[in-house]
């Protein structure tokens, strides 16, 4: 579904991405894991076209995404820190997104209901807590039934109840045949969600394995322990 070939990106002297090549198929839930500053968010942003890579190509369902924008219609993106115009209310933001996407039917409002966002529609974005903003971002990412979901640190600010509801939703969407890309440092959250792991370090993709392979290779049952083992062996 998404194919990355030799993606490299520099920010000044910093090499944010260094020859990343991989393929993500549908009906998978892929975790992007790696230490801070290893290029996870940059990788996600290149897929979304927010960061333009120095070299390499990205194809989405067979089409190169460079200079294209229509493909983003099929992506739901939840940013690490959702930032919205302070003056707008939640209701206005939701309305605006519907307006921009040009869709008002067949919407997936499960998360809006689950997080009781409809009770907060008059609140201005500038007055919301970090967790509530995360809820709005999550609801927006799922709202348009996209075939790819890209979630950057989705559970970081959510309370335990919301976090559980959210995980159930992700599993349900994956079972419908969607591709879900998640980055997270909370490995225990990922344990029963993900089917594949991409491990990155210093902008390089170290491995891309299914979770069974990883378990076999490290001999650990829990994701937390197997990743810890990988991280320590790669840590300088």
């Amino acid at each position: 579904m998404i194919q990355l070939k030799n993606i490299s990106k520099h920010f000044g002297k910093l090499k944010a991405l260094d020859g990343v090549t991989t393929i993500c198929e549908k009906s998978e839930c892929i975790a992007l894991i790696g230490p801070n500053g290893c290029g996870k968010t940059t990788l996600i942003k290149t897929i979304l076209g927010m960061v333009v890579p120095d070299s390499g190509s990205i194809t989405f369902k067979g089409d190169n995404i460079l200079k294209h924008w229509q493909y983003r219609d099929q992506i739901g993106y939840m940013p690490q820190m959702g930032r919205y115009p302070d003056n707008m209310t939640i209701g206005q933001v939701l309305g605006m997104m519907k307006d921009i996407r040009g869709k008002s039917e067949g919407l997936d409002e499960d998360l809006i209901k689950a997080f009781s966002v409809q009770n907060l529609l008059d609140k201005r974005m500038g007055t919301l807590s970090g967790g509530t903003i995360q809820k709005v971002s999550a609801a927006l990412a799922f709202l348009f039934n996209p075939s790819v979901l890209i979630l950057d640190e989705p559970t970081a600010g959510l309370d335990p109840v919301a976090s559980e509801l959210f995980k159930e939703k992700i599993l349900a969407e994956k079972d419908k045949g969607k591709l879900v890309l998640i980055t997270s440092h909370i490995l225990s959250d990922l344990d029963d969600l993900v089917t594949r792991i991409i491990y990155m370090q210093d902008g390089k993709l170290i491995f891309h394995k299914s979770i069974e392979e990883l378990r076999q290779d490290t001999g650990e049952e829990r994701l937390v322990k197997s990743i810890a083992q990988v991280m320590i062996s790669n840590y300088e």
Partner: protein
Amino acid sequence: MNKIIKYVITDILRNKIVLIYTVFLLAASFSVFSLEDNSSKGLLSLLNVILIVVPLVSIIFSTIYMYNSAEFIELLVSQPLKRNTIWLSLFTGLASSLSIAFLIGAGIPVLIYQANLVGFTMILTGVLLSIIFAAIAFLATVQTRDKAKGIGAAIMLWLYFSLLFDGLVLFILFQFADYPMENAMIGLSALNPIDLSRILILLQLDVSAMMGYTGAVFKDFFGASNGLIFSFFVLLSWIVIPVWYSTHKFNSKDL
């Protein structure tokens, strides 16, 4: 594209600064016209207010607005929208709200007291200046991510165009006093939209004493009508070139 323009304009209206700007222009224009017994004198005083205030408000407000909209832009870029569309819609929204504010604030009084060719030229140049300085603000914001740097650059640009430029022209003039400088001066004046607007209006008012050196040369070189057309097209290119360049830059910007 229209949807984004709509959101930008409602956001600006909610912000109230543009409303205050409109009221200020209204108050300034009416008081200037009622202070002078001769309304063409009033127009002249208003000209000086407009040449200072319009560029200042346009460039500073646009720059700060663009930096404050960084989140909004980021949100839009992750949606199925063309970057060109996003950037040009933001520009259209900002430039049109500033122009409308000017049209209401200064346009109405001018039409009441001086509904002639000079009045119309003045309204036209005021609108053009609003758009030009919004375009220059876009240039400043696309160049740097640092808010303080961007706003600083905007203030410096305004200072340069409204104060430093004239000093620079005089300096060059005295340095090269022995050479025929007339044609070079016309080229120089094209480098400053404020200077050009002043010439555009004064060419019609026929008050050479107010024109400054470039204006006098201008009149001599072109005669009134050619000078008018020339300066109008140069002002237009002051909009087109910065907007084109900033759009080009924004297309490959990392967010």
